[in-house]
């Protein structure tokens, strides 16, 4: 635990009545969850009555206490004591033709930055950090920025992000850090975290990547998009020799070809690539890696991280796609990016009418680029605007510039002009009543419009080769939505779910995928980003890349975890780490794991024991051996099986490719096929079973020790 932060002092003066905190004496249990999380230190414990008491004069009205109370025993009335936020919105100024100036403004001065930082509460349990996909230490860098120490702020950022200048421009703050700011959860305006980060990134250089020593690992990273860069950065920091394979002639992936310069100028992300090059990363351009040749890379490298992205455009099933003047968003944006702002720029779409299929973020980029090339654009989406996938602020900005964005509209066919060029499109209206259902097309509502160019911007998918690989060999199925066990109570405790349940669920889903990224999808192969989960965001891909790199280091770099551990007492020198997990269904299984732990510990193993229900998946990383014991349930009509707890919890374990596993069952009379069932499940997870045994309840100690001996024998043979 780090020392508590004092709130940043605000220069704003407030007048009038402040907030009033009400503690329900009947229900307050004195657990102090509110006290330890109150940013203002307004709550203390009345140790006579053992309930929380509030000093209203200190309360800032952030409602963190009422969100975090497990028993709903506290609530706050009254205003929020924070200066109003004045976020700058995009205003169109001047002609758009050839315009490359950034559309989203940053802070103009350090004073503006300081004013924004003053609104930060320095929450002891910051929900903004949970909302940020890469978990930047937001209160930490805001505090440093407020103190004027921008270098330190950048240093804090660089611990969790190598693309600060990029993320602070392209992230959807409202569904990430700012959406989960305490002020937002309380119904107010968020601290402008994105723009604060941007100011820091723009006014500092990233700390040099200078690993203290080489770890001897050689890792191949496939793809140099945000995921690949994140993985490379993290591997490099640990002294790994990294080679990046990029099929294009330039690095950056989606950063380069997918985001227009007026949103993300090249100088925001290129320095990261330069830093990596300087630190010794070998970039092999024009060297794509086929899905089939991934395994061959393992001959030359210790591990591979696949971050090839998802670049195959989604195609509509309509006539006329083969006409000239129909292209996909990637090629359009690539060309547009090269043209707009180039020397001797000449508008190529003057007087042209462009139909953009889709109204997501890429579609908005296309439509706005069309305007900068002199054309007019119509973007259509068959969904209702309420359920649209695009960011509302992007859609609003596009409309401000003059893009005609039409929802509940789809295209039925593209019609040529006779010479093989697209000339018109037939549009149909749709009906869309719920976010959970697909829209229905209203037949007979056809309306024809003239078009000169059609750009397909309906999203991307993983390329067929990688998809088939995922089916047949290695990448595995993407992490399932909601595939996690119940929500981590540390997340519940922060009050995030009580404030904005849907946003918290979204963030938790992202976190689940980030954690899953740390685990190999096949022996020595990790897969991340769009390639694994389909199109996502820059920051999510980068954080998954960093997570995969850490997982890889934990698994393969023996010095990464071990340097902090040492042998103690009379124990033999450290030989490895073991995680002993029981199903928690019986005291017998628990006791058996205790006997096994003792035996392994005595042989020099670092041992950690846990109930599967309380197991943090990350604990599996870096352990040399996983021992799993389950109680046998039955006999019953349904036969003899591992306990229902084991059966329920088992599927939620992460992939265990290459992990050494020893498993046993504890039974009173007979184990039936329970042991076989368990080993099959472990095999399906990719584990390497080294021992499987039975422990009888009546002979618990002896059988457990015997099994431990079998495990040790299997390890050393």
């Amino acid at each position, binding site marked *: *635990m*780090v*020392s*508590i*932060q*004092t709130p940043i002092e605000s220069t704003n003066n407030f007048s009038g009545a402040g907030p009033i905190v*009400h503690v*329900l004496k*009947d*229900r307050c*249990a004195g*657990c102090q*969850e509110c*006290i*330890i*999380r*109150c940013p203002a*230190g307004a709550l203390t*414990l009345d*140790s*006579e*009555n*053992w309930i929380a008491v509030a000093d209203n004069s200190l309360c800032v009205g952030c409602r963190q206490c009422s969100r975090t109370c*497990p028993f*709903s*025993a506290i*609530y706050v009335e009254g205003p929020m004591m924070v200066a109003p936020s004045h976020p700058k919105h995009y205003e169109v100024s001047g002609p758009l033709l050839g315009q490359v100036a950034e559309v989203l403004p940053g802070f103009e001065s350090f004073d503006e930055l300081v004013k924004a930082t003053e609104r930060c509460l320095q929450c*002891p*349990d910051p929900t903004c*950090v*949970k909302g940020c996909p890469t*978990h930047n*230490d937001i*209160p*930490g860098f805001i*505090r*440093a920025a407020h103190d004027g120490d921008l270098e*330190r702020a950048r*240093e*804090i950022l660089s*611990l*969790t992000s190598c693309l600060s200048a990029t993320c602070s421009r392209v992230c959807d703050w409202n569904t990430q850090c700012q959406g989960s700011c305490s002020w937002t959860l309380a119904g107010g305006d968020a601290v402008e975290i994105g723009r604060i980060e941007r100011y820091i990134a723009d006014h500092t250089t990233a700390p040099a990547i200078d690993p203290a020593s080489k770890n001897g690992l050689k890792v191949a990273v496939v793809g140099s998009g945000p995921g690949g860069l994140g993985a490379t950065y993290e591997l490099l920091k640990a002294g790994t020799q990294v080679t990046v394979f990029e099929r294009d002639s330039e690095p950056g992936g989606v950063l380069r070809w997918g985001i227009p310069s007026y949103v993300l100028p090249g100088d925001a992300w290129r320095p990261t690539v330069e830093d990596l090059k300087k630190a010794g990363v070998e970039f092999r351009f024009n060297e794509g890696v086929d899905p089939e040749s991934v395994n061959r890379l393992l001959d030359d490298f210790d591990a591979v991280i696949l971050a090839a992205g998802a670049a195959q455009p989604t195609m509509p099933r309509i006539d006329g796609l083969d006409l000239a003047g129909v292209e996909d968003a990637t090629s359009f944006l690539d060309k547009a990016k090269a043209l707009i702002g180039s020397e001797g720029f000449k508008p190529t779409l003057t007087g042209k009418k462009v139909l953009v299929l889709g109204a997501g973020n890429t579609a908005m980029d296309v439509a706005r680029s069309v305007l900068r090339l002199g054309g007019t654009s119509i973007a259509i989406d068959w969904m209702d605007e309420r359920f649209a996938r695009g960011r509302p602020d992007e859609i609003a900005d596009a409309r401000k510039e003059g893009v005609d964005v039409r929802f509940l509209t789809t295209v039925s066919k593209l019609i040529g002009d006779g010479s093989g060029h697209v000339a018109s499109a037939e549009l149909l209206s749709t009906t869309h009543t719920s976010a959970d259902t697909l829209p229905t097309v209203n037949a007979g509502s056809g309306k024809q419009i003239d078009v000169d160019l059609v750009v397909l911007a309906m999203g991307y998918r993983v390329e067929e080769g990688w998809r088939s690989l995922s089916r047949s060999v290695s990448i595995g199925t993407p992490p399932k939505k909601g595939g996690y*066990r*119940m929500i*981590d*109570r*540390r997340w*519940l405790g922060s009050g995030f779910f009580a404030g904005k349940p849907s946003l918290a669920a979204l963030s938790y889903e992202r976190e689940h995928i980030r*954690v899953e990224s740390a685990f190999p999808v096949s022996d020595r192969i990790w897969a991340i980003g769009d390639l694994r989960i389909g199109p996502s965001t820059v920051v999510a891909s980068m954080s998954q890349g960093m997570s995969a790199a*850490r*997982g890889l280091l934990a698994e393969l770099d023996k010095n*990464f*975890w071990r340097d*902090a551990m040492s042998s103690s007492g009379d124990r033999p020198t450290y030989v490895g780490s073991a995680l002993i997990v029981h199903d928690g269904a*019986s*005291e017998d299984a628990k006791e058996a794991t205790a006997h096994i732990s003792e035996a392994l510990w005595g042989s020099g193993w670092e041992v950690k024991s846990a109930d599967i*229900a*309380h197991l943090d998946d*990350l604990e599996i990383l870096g352990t040399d051996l996983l021992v799993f014991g389950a109680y046998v349930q039955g006999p019953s009509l349904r036969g003899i099986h591992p306990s229902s707890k084991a059966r329920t*919890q088992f599927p939620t374990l992460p992939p265990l490719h290459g992990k050494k596993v020893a498993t046993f069952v504890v039974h009173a009379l007979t184990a039936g096929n329970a042991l076989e069932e368990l080993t099959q499940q472990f095999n399906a997870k990719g584990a390497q079973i080294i021992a499987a045994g039975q422990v009888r309840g009546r002979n618990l100690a002896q059988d457990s020790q015997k099994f431990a001996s079998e495990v040790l024998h299997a390890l050393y043979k």
Partner: protein
Amino acid sequence: MAQKSIDTQVRSDNKSELNNPILSSIRLREPQQTGVKEHFTKTDPGIDLTENRLFGRFLKKSLKNRKFQFLLILPNQIIFWIVIATGIFGVTDPGRNFGPAITWYLWFCVVFVLMAVIGRAWCAMCPFGGFGEWIQRRTFFQRTQKTLGLGKKLPESWAGHGLLISSIVFVILTFFEEFFNIAGPGVPIATSLLVLSIVSFATLSFLLFERRTFCRYLCPLSSVVATAGAMGSVAGFRTKDRNVCLSCKTKDCMRGGEDGFGCPWYTWPGSADSNAFCGLCSECYKSCPSDNIGLFVQKPLTSVVAPTRRRLDIGISVAILLGLVLFQQYNALSWFGPMDDWLNKLVKFPHYPNPIDYLGGIALAVLIIWLGVQGIQKAGGLRKISGQKSSWFTAFAYAIIPITGLDYFARQLPKFFKHVTRVPSAVVSPLGIHLHIYGTRLLTDPRIVTVQVGLMGLGTALTLWSTYRIAKTDMQLNARRPKVALATAMTFAFAICLLASLLYIPMQAAS
């Protein structure tokens, strides 16, 4: 501006947190640990049943089992639905009908014994709450993540009154019970309708509110169980090591963990200092990730005399409940009937009990206790100190819990001794079997009064002991004339006990 520096090295130094960067951005304040000893030592029970050498292992296994509470509820659930069915479809003679017979001749006495010995044992097996909870959780016993219903919180303005709502519901229910002569017992269908309406009210509450809001606040029996149950020897589920709870980062026992729901009763084992709100459901025991919960027993009356956090709502509830049972006692006297009739004629109310003398009698008892406490305060020179603990009314009300509880029990005894033999007869009579024990009395009238008065004598002794302990530890510390405070408190308590006890003699004579 005083500011502390940020340790930017935290993440890079601590490799175990590298893949969980959230952890290093959390800078929680330290929980306050001072005052723990002072607050809890007196109420901390000593014996953890789960550590018992003989049956601890079995108990642990049972408590960890998710079917534990289900198996407690199931038999009662079956009985109560039979009660409803037989009340509606069975014979009209209440003595031969299983529904009213088991409810009024046996159930209340059993419930009282359970509460006086174990605390909220009945709540752990209650079919009303159990039924609602099964629906709310969408399962009989599994740990589900999603609940059915609106999951609302009881409005703060209501929740702030704690047990008072339950006491009021109990008073209202008792009025209807007296008015329709349900527990007499009267016509069997009345018993069925009463049980059905409680089940419906409970189920509706479970669908409307979160957790066991019904049991905690609305159930008519909750205030009786919470007060009389304080005499019990089971302290409930408590923490083994309070510091583990204070430093716990997840509070699974409150929020719910992988294996158990968050406490349905809004009780945190880490700060529980009485058994008043432990429903003995074992959810905290199941959910604690640190294995830091035990099932503790305590000396009888510990939850009456020891709590440092006395509750005003419990204090008022005790006074109300005592007022109610005293009303039920003196309404059996010969002079009461004509007075009630006269009042009914005056306000044109159909028949006994008249709401004015019913509510007036209860209010009068509360007023007398309050005035009595004022007298003790004046005589002993008790200082006023803020906080609930120092409310002398509350402290005194706690002291008279034993006589109140035993008074309820004593009042039920005639029905038990005279008619409990009808229960087995009612069970077998639908099969055409007629037992000869029907009509047999376990005890006859003069002996019943002896038992009643004896029981009240026990209540008096326990009350005097409680009064002595509370007066000695709390009142004397804050009294200018400590001995006078002690003497007046003891005298007043004795006067209440004497009145309640002696009323049984003219009651018997009148009947």
